[in-house]
């Protein structure tokens, strides 16, 4: 498994490539921890090249969700293939983790959420 981290304007992007399992999930966990400490408010997870995920990989996301909410960070996953979306669905996580089809959709979602938040 390989991670590539980049920034596009305000968006902190983590690209996940390969298999995310019990032997590799620690790398994602570290990358998410680092992203949260950069004070970004917008984390995008590019899953277009994610071929497989098991529970430790999913756990890297679920264990950070509350922290993101507390720090007003929006995290969006995009580009997941059908097999991986189905795994999130079986756990009921498709209702709790924001999943979008494309990077543009993910950015639009974050922009809308931040615009709405600024109005309140």
């Amino acid at each position, binding site marked *: 498994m390989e991670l590539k981290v980049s920034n596009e304007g305000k968006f902190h992007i983590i690209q996940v490539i390969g*298999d995310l*399992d019990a032997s590799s999930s620690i790398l994602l966990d570290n990358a998410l921890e680092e992203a949260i400490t950069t004070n970004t408010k917008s984390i995008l997870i590019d899953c277009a090249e994610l071929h497989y995920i098991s529970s*430790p990989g999913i*756990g*890297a996301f*679920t*264990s950070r969700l*509350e922290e993101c909410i507390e720090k007003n960070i929006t995290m969006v996953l995009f580009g997941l293939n059908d097999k991986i979306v189905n795994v999130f669905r079986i*756990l009921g996580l498709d209702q*709790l983790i924001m999943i979008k089809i494309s990077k543009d959709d993910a950015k639009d979602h974050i922009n809308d959420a931040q615009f709405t938040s600024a109005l309140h």
Partner: protein
Amino acid sequence: MMHSLQVPCTKENLKEIRYFVESALSRYNLSANDVNLMILAIDELCANLIIHSHQCNQDECIEVKVKNENQTFIFEIHDQSNDSFNLLEYKIPDIQQIITEKRNGSMGLMLVKRIMDDIEVERNDGHNICRLYKSLPEGSN
């Protein structure tokens, strides 16, 4: 026909286990989604055994067996340990609670129970067999 694979108890061998299960299932006309779910269930159970029952001790091994009988896939995971954990008694936690408590575990066995149709556990003098059943007629998708 029974397929079997024995590997040392290291997390790095999970990938080999996944390839093995995928290869054993490749001769059947199954959807990519069904194949992925069965691979995932076996991966989760093996990861649990390797990490918690064997503490990633590479001197110890687990064995995975796969066969198909009357359109039911039967997966057996054999290991030698005195771990008293009983999968059958495991209660599926609430997903919202896992998130609130910032936990990164507990979902693997939830997946196993939701994916598989039936689970049996056999213990005999430290030799354990976990048997998982999934009924899936070929070409049913």
